[in-house]
């Protein structure tokens, strides 16, 4: 798998406080990478390091294979668009002037401005100054900033924070379109798990500055899938019976299996006893993304 963003044992300290502790993440090219963690887990700090706003204490990161210690890192960064926390807009300028300013900053002509304004649905804002924009409009203008440079990677820090449901939907649809139609890799941090689950193809879970786990959406789906966990003394007999009943299942160990199809317990147990197979336990497993995350971080509240 080709990775467009990688960190290797990245550490960031503020004085004595260790905010990032040997963080290693791998963002596959073309993915929407959901970076999940509670408030204060280190998500924004990692994003600040990746965008060059903060200097790492130790460890390294690479963008498109170019290490942060390389002299070419600023060139690599030109292929990144980012919105870190609040969008960095020029408050006294309207949307078009704002984008013109960014075009000047990166030495691009103004010809893409109208297209991008339409894309983020700010084409009709006229001379309204950015300081008078709603939060959703500011977020979309921030995303427009990051799209001007034709980025290969978009890094968004809590882009749906404070948005109303309509605004959240608009941002979600925009990001899905950018990923699927333009092939832009997106790293998006959030603590709103439900919303992330509608977007992300890959996940990284972080807590107290430590990356706990990275997984694909498919793996997470399996982990959170509603299932029935069965423990028996003869796994071959169980496989035979489940096969004959056309059930979707996964063998977990020599004595355990997860069954993903709804079933009646009595016929299954009857069939198993005919094959001299003893059933020890049958338990229901219905883990949501939220409870999966809580279990992963070892309990506690999600902020």
């Amino acid at each position, binding site marked *: 798998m080709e990775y467009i963003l990688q960190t290797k044992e990245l550490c960031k300290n503020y004085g004595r406080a260790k905010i990032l502790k040997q963080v290693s993440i791998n963002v596959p090219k073309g993915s929407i990478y959901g970076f999940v963690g509670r408030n204060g887990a280190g998500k924004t700090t990692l994003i600040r390091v990746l*965008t060059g*706003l903060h200097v790492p204490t130790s460890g390294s990161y690479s963008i498109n294979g170019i290490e942060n210690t390389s002299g070419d890192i600023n060139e690599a960064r030109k292929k990144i668009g980012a919105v870190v926390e609040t969008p960095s*807009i020029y408050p006294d300028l309207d949307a078009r002037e704002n984008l013109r300013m960014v075009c000047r*900053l*990166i030495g691009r002509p103004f010809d893409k401005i109208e297209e991008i304004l339409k894309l983020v649905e700010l084409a009709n804002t006229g001379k309204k100054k950015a300081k008078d924009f709603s939060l959703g409009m500011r977020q979309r203008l921030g995303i427009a900033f990051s799209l001007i440079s034709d980025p290969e990677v978009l890094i968004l820090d809590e882009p749906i924070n404070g948005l109303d449901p309509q605004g959240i939907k608009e941002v979600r649809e925009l990001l899905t379109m950018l990923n699927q139609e333009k092939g832009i890799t997106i790293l998006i941090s959030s603590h709103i798990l439900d919303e992330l689950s509608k977007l992300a193809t890959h996940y990284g879970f972080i807590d107290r500055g430590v990356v706990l786990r990275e997984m694909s959406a498919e793996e997470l789906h399996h982990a959170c899938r509603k299932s029935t966990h069965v423990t028996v003394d003869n796994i071959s007999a169980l496989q035979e019976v489940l096969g004959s009943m056309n059930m979707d299942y996964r063998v977990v160990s020599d004595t355990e299996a997860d069954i993903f199809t709804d079933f009646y317990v009595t016929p299954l147990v009857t069939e198993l006893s005919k094959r001299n197979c003893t059933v020890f336990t049958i338990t229901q497993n219905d883990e949501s993304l939220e409870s999966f995350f809580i279990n992963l971080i070892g309990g506690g509240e999600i902020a």
Partner: protein
Amino acid sequence: MLNLLSVNFRRAFLRKRFIIGGGFPCAIGLLIVYLAYRTDGNVDYAPFFMTGFLPMLIGITAGLYISQDYTTNTIRNKIINGHSRTSIYLSNFITSMVGTFIIYGVYLLLTFGLGSLVTGVSSDFDGERTFKGILLVFCIMFTFTSITVMLCMINSGVSGTVISTLMYMILGMSSLVIVFVDNDLFKELFVNLNPTFQIDTVSEYATGAEYSEENIHISWIPISSIAYIILTTVIGISVFNKKDIK
């Protein structure tokens, strides 16, 4: 770098803040010319009338421009879009230097240029001495500008602007040190290398008032200005390169 300068010049000079900052010395300049005209005086020493006030104007205009980049977080755009921190620092440095040049240049044009046409100069006007004095004022103003850029680039808030605005007075008040140190060499170095005292020295030199070549070294001013500018820029860039931007 050119892209950064393009944005900087638009942000710095086409805004209300700079027009107000630059408009004030213009108004003072016009007032000086008017007063000289009304009193049948001349503008021989007009280039040096407002020199003590200029560092404050530099602190306000350059300082507020740089600190605004922090308060609106637009400095992030420069870093995220792949500009090196050294380029960002130097582009702000160049923008501020040009701003200083414009502010004092416009003041000179009005007071001395327009003034000499309106009132003329006196018979004992020393053109060479005045020209040298103007160049020396530029050197000192560039020193103050460089200090302002350093303070504002390494302080994220407006504290850099506040300190820069008061820099002329802070350096002036530091003369209290002389009271406690009984060493002639130290006193000589302190007086000649302190930018606030340098402004007074240039005024005295240009106007010929109370100027003594025994302890005052006018030739030290351009050399010390270059040294200050290099030193503050090197310190500023090295601190800014390691600074975490919010």
